[in-house]
């Protein structure tokens, strides 16, 4: 079932994002573990080029598992992760974890350089790319800083720069801002969007925050737990660029309410299915 939430946004200058070509299909994907946990069951999903897709759901709904399957860090028990278009190489997937996951012994520059370095790109060759990425995330001048000298938000910016430095076609983000305070999170949401708006890579963003998913996404996939499954998809038809005025607009409020309601149903469905069992 698809449910489009039409938002009448009074922003004539903005552009409504046109979904591109299908880039990735999840076809009847299931993942079970040896201890009997069914993390995902019959997940079907289409991701289009340039989507900002959020996976939203309660903990235990398998959203992080889905992300690991898409990244190729884990293989599905059954079903298919079906990429379309040119074959996916090492450079084509960026991953941002919940924690900044930086190497504490390496400078900011060396942390961002890492994905290129692992592919044999020399420091000199990597320099302009790293510098550009650091500039995008607002960390120019911090090249020689060590991770422990940075705040939580800045560490996360380094992590994002590292995820993007190979110019991936898909950026996978696993609750990247969950551990940050709200002010920092808003700022990072905003900055992430502006990078994405310029580049239009595909983002698959795992979150448990309704507000964050509505603010960022072009599409939200709501998942239910036990077993993890897709419950509902919502198109967020609000134009980009989105800024603070979007965050305070009635449309945003309406979208959040709508999303929240469906998330509530997803969690209720879960309770009902458990009671029936």
């Amino acid at each position, binding site marked *: 079932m698809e449910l489009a939430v039409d938002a009448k946004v009074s922003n004539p200058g903005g552009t409504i994002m046109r979904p591109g070509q299908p880039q990735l299909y999840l076809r009847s994907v299931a993942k079970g573990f040896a201890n009997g946990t069914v993390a995902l069951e019959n997940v079907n999903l289409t991701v289009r080029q340039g989507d900002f897709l959020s996976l939203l759901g309660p903990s235990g709904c398998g959203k992080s598992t889905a992300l690991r399957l898409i990244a190729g860090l884990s293989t599905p028990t059954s079903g298919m992760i079906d990429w379309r278009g040119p074959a996916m190489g090492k450079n084509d997937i960026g991953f941002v974890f919940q924690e900044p*996951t930086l*190497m504490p012994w390496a400078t900011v520059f060396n942390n961002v350089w890492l994905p290129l370095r692992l*592919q044999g790109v020399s420091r000199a060759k990597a320099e302009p790319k790293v510098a550009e990425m650091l500039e995008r995330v607002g960390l120019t001048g911090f090249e020689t800083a060590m991770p422990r000298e940075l705040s939580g938000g800045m560490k996360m910016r380094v992590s994002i720069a590292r995820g993007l430095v190979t110019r991936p076609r898909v950026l996978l983000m696993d609750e990247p801002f969950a551990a940050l305070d709200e002010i920092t999170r808003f700022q990072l949401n905003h900055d992430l969007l502006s990078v994405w708006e310029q580049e239009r890579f595909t983002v698959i963003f795992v979150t448990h925050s309704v507000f964050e998913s509505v603010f960022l996404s072009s599409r939200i996939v709501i998942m239910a737990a036990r077993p993890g499954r897709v419950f509902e998809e919502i198109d967020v038809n609000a134009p980009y660029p989105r800024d603070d005025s979007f965050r305070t607009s009635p449309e945003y409020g309406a979208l959040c309410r709508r999303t929240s309601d469906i998330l509530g149903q997803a969690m209720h469905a879960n309770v009902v299915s458990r009671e029936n069992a």
Partner: protein
Amino acid sequence: MSAVESHEQPIAIDAEEASRLRNERLERVGRWLFPLLIMAAAILAWDRICVWNEIPRYILPRPGEVLATLFQDAGILFSALAVTLRITFLSLALAVIGGVGLAILFTQSKWVEMSFFPFAVILQVTPIVAIFPLINIYVDDQTTKLLLCAWIVAFFPILSNTTLGLNSVDRNLLDLFKLNGANRWQTLWHLRLPASMPYFLGGLKIAGGLSLIGAVVAEFVAGASGQNSGLASRIIEAGYRLNAPRLFAALILISFTGIVIFLVLSWISHLILRRWHESALRRDH
């Protein structure tokens, strides 16, 4: 963030802060002063006990006499120290190579680790003094004997610490390396080795002391003598001759060497870790 508060700011310091600062200053001085005072008191007590009880010099020499012997016998003692130090550092170097090498081998495959780690434990828990007679039978060369002994004692902390360190890698970072197509060698060089550094350095500090102990113990049981003998032989010799002042002087030289080795290794460890590791951080409050 990285801004440092300048102390020049004319901020009024309240009573609580003032007393905290005072305590900090006292602590800084006291850290050195109190141990030194206690040490001086102990040496004085030692001296007085010798004098008051009229203890003969071959039982317990006065501290002044020990110090004098240290200078008088400097030629004999320091050449012996050089022999002991050579064994100590050679065995420490071999312990580092062997310990780290084996640890790297262990982390390449869980099976290798599971199969061979118990043997390292057996080697470690069996007292070296009990193994030595065997080594004595199988090995002819004196230096090799001593090295082997000191190595057996010193390599285990490096092996076990480094193995632990190589395995204590952030799982997400491992995933990131995998995602970027890193090979085994790259993962080792860019991830596992740096991550294991604090553990390795902790093991190295322990091994430094142990290799000295190993060198001395090995020499004791080997009963080396002649021009090739180290401090342990001098101690045994002095014991036979009831030359207590020289015995004490040699003893002091050994513990002093141990302290210096520990300080040097701590300093190296600090230099390597100071920019990133929690253990090297200065607490601000």
